[in-house]
Structure formats: C-alpha cells, structure tokens
C-alpha cells in the first residue's frame, strides 16, 4: 500500500513541473525467451528531462536489461519505450565489458568513437579527457589502466558528443574509493551544471541516495519512482521489520 502511495505522490510532483519526458515506457513486458515468466512485468517508467535517476534493485532484478531495452539493444516482448533524446552517452557495466586485452589506446578508443558519432571537432578528445582528469593518459593502452581510470575514459567517451541523456550501469563497480568520489562528483556536476539527464544503475545505495533526484526501485519485474528520502525511509522500515522478525 505504502508503495502505491509514494508512487502517486511522486507523479503528482512531476505533473506540476510539466517538464518534457526524456524516457517514457508504458506496459512494458520483457523476457529473454519471449514468453512468461517476464523479467519486466507490466513496468512503467517516466523520466523527465534534467533528472538524475538512480535505478536500484537486487542482483538479477533486470536493471541492466531495462537499460538495454532503453538503448534499443533489446526489443520489448510487448509495450513500448519512447525516447526523446537523440544523443545518448552510455557507460556500460564494466564486469560485462570483458575486453581488457584489446589492443587499443585511450586516444584510439576516443578518436574512433568521435568519428562514429560524426563529431568533426578533434579537440573534443582532449576536452573530455581533461574533464575527467585523464589528459596525461591519452597514449596509454586501455588494458593497462586501473578500474577507476578505465571508467573515467568511458565517461569521457560518453560525454564527447554532448549527449542529452547519459545512461550508466554501475559506474562505481571495480573502482577504487578515491576514483568513486571523483566519478560521482563528475556525474553530479554534469546533471546540475549542464542539465544533462542521468539514468544510473546503482548497487551503491549511498551514492544513489546522496546524488540522485529520484530513485527507481525495481522489484519483481515492476518498478516505482520515489525520492531519495522516501527510498531511505522505506529501506530503513524494511530492515527494521526484518530485524524485529529475527
């Protein structure tokens, strides 16, 4: 019951602000087999322009799958997703990204990407490297970078085309503490200063609560949007209940 109330409450706020939605998904069903049981089961998602949304949920709850659907790598079994953003930056989940031995330099990874998105301006490479404090690693091999450094390069790549929407999948997994802080500060700055819409899958609940404007909590194939504060209360209630039972 509580969940339903929170859900209505937060949509009310959104309607008052009347911002352009950047991602809209309705009646979304998805399973990898194309049949029941559905991993995403009648899911709805509305993300307004300019928000910083953290997507949280247990392992295997379908967070990465939802991102892949939004990006168009997967087709919904039924339902649809409307994306108004044309330019998207994507930072993939790094433990999925098993290509560490690939012979490619930081410069090559960025320069080829720049050409693919049709960006003529070569200085975009140095600019974005500077923004993530990685300028001096331009000629390094990707495979020799630490987890945090590699993640910063992926961030630099994602911002190169001045995206309207940035999708990140567990940006702090496999990243040392110092880089984690740096990375979250950077993402937060993109959102507050450049107004970039952020959708970030988070297993790091601290980061989700302290950085995002809304939290999309996924359970049993559904999701509900709440404020970080509501999420925290909900979380504390659940753990207290579990504690009482024990």
């Amino acid at each position, binding site marked *: 019951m509580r969940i339903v109330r929170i859900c209505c409450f937060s949509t009310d706020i959104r309607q008052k602000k009347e911002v352009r939605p950047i991602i809209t998904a309705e009646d979304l069903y998805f399973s990898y087999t194309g049949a029941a049981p559905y991993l995403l089961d009648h899911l709805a998602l509305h993300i307004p322009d300019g928000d910083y949304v953290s997507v949280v949920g247990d392992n295997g709850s379908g967070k990465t799958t939802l991102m892949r659907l939004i*990006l*168009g*790598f997967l087709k919904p079994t039924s339902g649809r997703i409307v994306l108004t953003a044309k330019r*998207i*930056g*994507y930072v*993939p989940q790094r433990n999925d*990204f098993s*290509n560490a031995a*690939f*012979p*490619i*330099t930081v*410069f*090559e*990874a960025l320069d*080829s*990407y720049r*050409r*693919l*998105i049709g960006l003529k301006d070569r200085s975009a490479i140095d600019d974005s490297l500077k923004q993530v404090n990685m300028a001096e690693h331009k000629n390094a*091999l990707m*495979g*020799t970078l630490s987890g945090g450094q590699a993640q910063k390069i992926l961030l630099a*790549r994602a911002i190169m085309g001045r995206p309207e929407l940035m999708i990140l999948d567990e940006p702090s997994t496999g990243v040392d503490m110092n880089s984690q802080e740096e990375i979250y500060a950077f993402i937060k700055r993109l959102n507050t200063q450049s107004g970039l819409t952020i959708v970030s899958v988070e297993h790091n609940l601290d980061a989700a609560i302290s950085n995002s404007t809304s939290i999309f909590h996924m359970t049993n194939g559904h999701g509900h949007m709440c404020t970080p504060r509501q999420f925290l209360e909900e979380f504390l209630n659940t753990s207290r209940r579990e504690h009482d039972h024990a």
Partner: protein
Amino acid sequence: MLSYTFMQNALFVSVFIAILCPCIGIFLVLRRYSMIGDTLSHASLAGITLALMSNQSPVLGAFVFTALSGALIEFLRGYFKRYSDLILSIVLALSVGTAITIISSGRLRTNADAFMFGSILTVTQTDIYLVLALSVFSVGALILLYHQMLYIAYDEEAARVAGVRVKLINYVFSVLVAAAISVSIRIVGVLVLSSMIALPVATALQLEKGFRKTLLYSILFSVIDIMLGLFLSYYLNVAPGGFTALVSVAMLLVVMSAKAIRTRIQIARGKPGRA
C-alpha cells in the same frame, strides 16, 4: 629465380596476400572468430571445385562460394545465438561435402591438389587481375569502414549507441573475408590459410601496442613470413603454403622469446616493464 615469369607472378600475388590477410585477420582474431577463417577456406575449396568443373576461374568461384558461406554464417548467427561454433560445423559440412563429392567424382579436368597445398606454378594472368581487383576493393572497404569495424570488434554496444549499422557491416565484412581467402588460396592453399590470417596478428599482439600499430606490425610480419616462405620453399622444393605456415610459427616464437628476454633484462636491471 626471379627471371621465371611464374615466380614474378607469385611474388606479385604474395604481396597482396601479405597485406590483405592480416587486415582481415586482426578483426577475426580480436572478435575471437579465428576459426571462421578455417571454415571459409574450406568453403573456398568447394567454390574452386565447382568452378573447375564448369570451366570458370577458380579464384572467382572461390570468392562467390566463400562470400555466400560467409553471409550464411552471419545469417545463422541470429538463429544459433548460444551455439555459434555449431554454425561453423554446418557450413564446414556443406563445403567439405561439396568439395569431396566433386573431387572424387573424377569430373575435374584439372588437379585440385594445387589449391589444397598451394602452388606458385599455377598462377595465371587472369588470376593476377582478379587478385588485384579483389585486393584493391577489400583494402578500400577496410579503409572506409576502419572505425566502424574497430568499434564493432572493441565494443559492439558502444558502436550501436554511436549509430553504427552493425549487422550490415558484419555482412560486408564476411564478403571481405571471402575476398582475402580467395586471393590467398592459390599460393597458400586451403589447409594453412587460417594460419596466414591468424599468425601474423598473434605475433603483432605480443608487442602490446595500440590498434593501428598492431595492424601495421601484423602486415610487416605477414610480408616477412610470406616472402621468406616463398623463397625458402622454392629452394627446398616444397609447397609454399606449408612452409610459410612454418615460418610464421617460427616468427611468433622469435618475437615471444625476444619479449621474454627483454622482460628478464628489465627485471635484472631493477625496472620491470609491463608484463
């Protein structure tokens, strides 16, 4: 030996092979598709036997049949997502079946051995023009699609986010693989073709450079391998394909040893390099 026309022809064709094979090979190796080279070279044998039976150019026959097989592999990939090696077995069965049936029927007017083992004696003027045309076409396509192909190999999802038409380019790529194989088959032969595609790249990967440098070193190693293979096989009077394959394995071992020795020296001096 260079005064013989056949040797000049062979040398000319070899240079193109040496450039083309690693250009294709680097993408196959990095996408962990090396075995496709093997499957497709067997497909080219089927194409050759079909062409010989109907009095067509064997290089052309190889190209058409191999390109179709490459497209078939790409197509089947959508159906057998989890069992992609199965696809190779299917195409291999189809190709080897065709080739063996035709060869054993005794209806070939020429001997197919030259294509199995590679031979420099049989390179004709028509072959040279075809090799030239296919090579120019392939290298041109590779230059045009360089960044797309690099990203599909490196990070396919990022390529898609950037708007690369992955499926289309994969089809184009299978045509390029077919071209490289049909160009090479005359000299190198079916049996060791996949080593020409993979070994110079494997050698260059030992140097741990970026993509462009790795590609350039693969071409360099490939040229050295095939030239050495060609000359030595001529003096030893053995098939050039087989000997080139041996040379490329030797080259890989030399580079690996040199790297190991260098690391030892650096450790001894107390400043270890990258492992």
